[in-house]
């Protein structure tokens, strides 16, 4: 690799991001120390806006898992889970999180000082089975109040009035539960404000993603970590401010015509969750002057919310978050990919067949067919796992990708 080909991928914003991550977990520990309640909750839902509006600190085990993978404590957590009898075939998020909660939590040297123990748990029937089961285990593990509620899985295109109405009733149950716990009434204005922040964050997020339509693209999938604020800081200014900074930075790059790599030749689409323990993988494509410019995963965390209707908005967010990424709305997902291929001028697609995650991986062969037959976009699928490096073979990845990239180059 020659010197001028060296990647310029890292965004400045990463420095701020590292602080935001540290601060999020430090906040949790502070809340704990000050006697403010900490609740562990499933990811991707409108509960977070409620939490922030009520000064309750949320912890997302599912966001903790990628951190463990990046820091390398995942393997230990997996073995705790296995020793407890959990099959190694189960989702890596599940195995990491319950392994951590059951045993890892008492180990020294956890990333960022570990997680503050929960003062209560929200166990939602919603999302995928492994997420539901994670909370089952947590409810058994921690002797704390639990709110059981749910929001069923409905394909996005099938959502009707009664789904939203039911969602609102569940949000009201949660509000009553949190009010009982904190002894404070929910201030509806604060909730509207939180919803407005999320809406704003989503709007900026869309703009950030859209800058990648430019050739050369200002950043690649290796920057997916900025999604942290979309998961943990929705409903707050932190997300809005940070994303605004990211937006100016990437816009600057676009204006200067500065791409992730100097001679961008091939633009790739990525399907499924990244390999959190190996984010460098996204740079592998550089040797062919190729960049990953769009992903299904990053599109799934953004939607518009209406501060005038805060309860409906958070119910809607909770309803659609999971169907958007998974096979619940396979048609929607395919539509999203169709649009991305057009808008981002995609030359080829890389599909990570993720052994951990059935809901996101099912339907990938259908996606490949649409890419081939309808869109004339070549694609390649490789076997991997978003959490467990033991289920990913770099050698196999290289063999598949090398052949694929040669083929794409020959086409272009």
């Amino acid at each position: 690799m020659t010197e001028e080909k060296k990647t310029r991928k890292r965004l400045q914003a990463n420095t701020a991001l590292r602080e935001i991550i540290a601060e999020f977990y430090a906040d949790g520990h502070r809340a704990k120390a000050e006697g403010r309640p900490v609740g562990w909750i499933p990811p991707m839902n409108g509960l977070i806006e409620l939490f922030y509006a009520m000064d309750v600190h949320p912890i997302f085990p599912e966001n903790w898992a990628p951190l463990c993978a990046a820091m390398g404590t995942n393997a230990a957590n997996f073995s705790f889970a296995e020793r407890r009898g959990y099959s190694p075939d189960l989702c890596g998020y599940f195995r990491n999180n319950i392994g951590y909660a059951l045993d890892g939590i008492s180990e020294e040297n956890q990333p960022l000082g570990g997680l503050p123990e929960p003062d209560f748990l929200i166990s939602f029937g919603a999302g995928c089975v492994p997420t539901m089961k994670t909370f089952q285990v947590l409810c058994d593990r921690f002797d704390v109040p639990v709110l059981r509620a749910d929001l069923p899985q409905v394909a996005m295109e099938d959502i009707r009035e009664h789904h939203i109405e039911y969602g609102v009733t569940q949000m009201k149950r949660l509000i009553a539960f949190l009010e009982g716990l904190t002894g404070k009434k929910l201030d509806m204005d604060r909730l509207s404000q939180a919803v407005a922040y999320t809406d704003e964050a989503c709007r900026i997020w869309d703009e950030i993603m859209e800058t990648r339509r430019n050739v050369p693209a200002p950043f690649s999938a290796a920057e997916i970590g900025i999604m942290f604020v979309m998961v943990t800081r929705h409903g707050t200014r932190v997300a809005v401010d940070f994303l605004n900074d990211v937006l100016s930075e990437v816009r600057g790059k676009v204006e200067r015509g500065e791409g992730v790599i100097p001679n961008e030749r091939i633009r790739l689409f990525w399907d499924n969750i990244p390999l959190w323990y190996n984010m460098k993988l996204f740079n592998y494509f550089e040797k062919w002057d190729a960049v990953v410019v769009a992903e299904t995963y990053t599109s799934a965390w953004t939607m518009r919310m209406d501060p005038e209707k805060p309860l409906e908005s958070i119910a809607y967010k909770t309803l659609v978050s999971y169907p958007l990424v998974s096979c619940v709305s396979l048609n929607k997902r395919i539509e999203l990919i169709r649009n991305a291929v057009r808008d981002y001028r995609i030359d080829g697609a890389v599909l990570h067949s993720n052994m951990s995650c059935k809901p996101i991986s099912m339907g990938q062969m259908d996606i490949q067919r649409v890419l081939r037959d309808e869109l004339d976009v070549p694609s390649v699928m490789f076997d991997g796992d978003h959490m467990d490096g033991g289920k990913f073979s770099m050698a196999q990845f290289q063999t598949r990708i090398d052949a694929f990239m040669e083929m794409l180059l020959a086409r272009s």
Partner: protein
Amino acid sequence: MDFRGLLDEQTDIIDAEKRRTGAPVLGTLCSYVPVELLHSFGIVPVRIWGQADDMHHADGLLQSYICPPVRNLLAMGLEGRYDFLDGILHCYTCDATCGLYNVWVRNIEPRFSHMISLPYVDTDESRRYATAEFEVLIGKLESLTGDAFSTDSLAESISLYNAQRELMREVYELKAAGCPIEYADIYSMNVCSQVLPVGLVAAELREYLERTRKMTPGPDGRRILLSGSVVTDLPLLEFIESTGAAIVADDTCLGHRLLESRIPDGPPLESLVEYYLSRPPCASRADFPSRRRILEETLESHGIDAVIFVHQKFCDPHLSDHPFLKEALEARGVPSLQVELEGEGFTGQVRTRIEGFFEMLET
């Protein structure tokens, strides 16, 4: 005729029924689909169930880490075994079947398809929500059949299903009381109730019970509870009982769980909702505490000596409940065995493990 015989004739029976009534036949992917509603429209619900000629027919559409039952069902669809269906219906339970539903709809292209999603908690609001879910389905069935929904007709369908479940429950009771009924028969009865018209199965059940009630209870072997999702391997079930043990209770996809309660009297739609929400939960429903409680109660009520978990490889709901249930059993001193099926049916390895388990129980 017996249950196994009826199963062999499924295709002819459904064909005849279709000719007789002219009504559509809808495939279902889960026992949470409200079959009573379909029946009230004259529709014949047929659970998509069984073994493909070659599971690999699904390889082009499903990754290798999807559970064998889902691979089997899709392979059967691709083999054309369900071409007689007018559509399919699903109720969200596990993620793999949700994927199956979507892949089926895209690739087999049924004329009609619909997925409902039931709530996980049983509250006033969730019942209202479930009623609305059923009403959406009703609207779609009205368009499909061109008939208007009738509460009276639903009430009739409910009483037919109630009666059938009552009879099936009696078979379980006789078995638990020591009657020499093979569990393989019970399994076939369960499948019949899912894949054949309700009236026909009830008639067979009446005859079967007539014969069985006269049998004298035999000596009591080891009393086994079978737990798992779908167990379609008759040889496996037969082998367990060939050791002298008796499977007197089950906690499986098609088993006793569906027979535990009746659809109560009252306004038919609301009663139907009540039945589906209050039924003992399967592993895919979020209510784990009830699942454990029901298991513990069954151990007591059926005097269970040992539990055999028959799991399918890559089955998230059951594999994640297993350590919990195992712990609950250990706390009560009830031994258990877990076998994981990989799609090859009853292999020598599975056999050896079961033999080993029974030997261990002897010592």
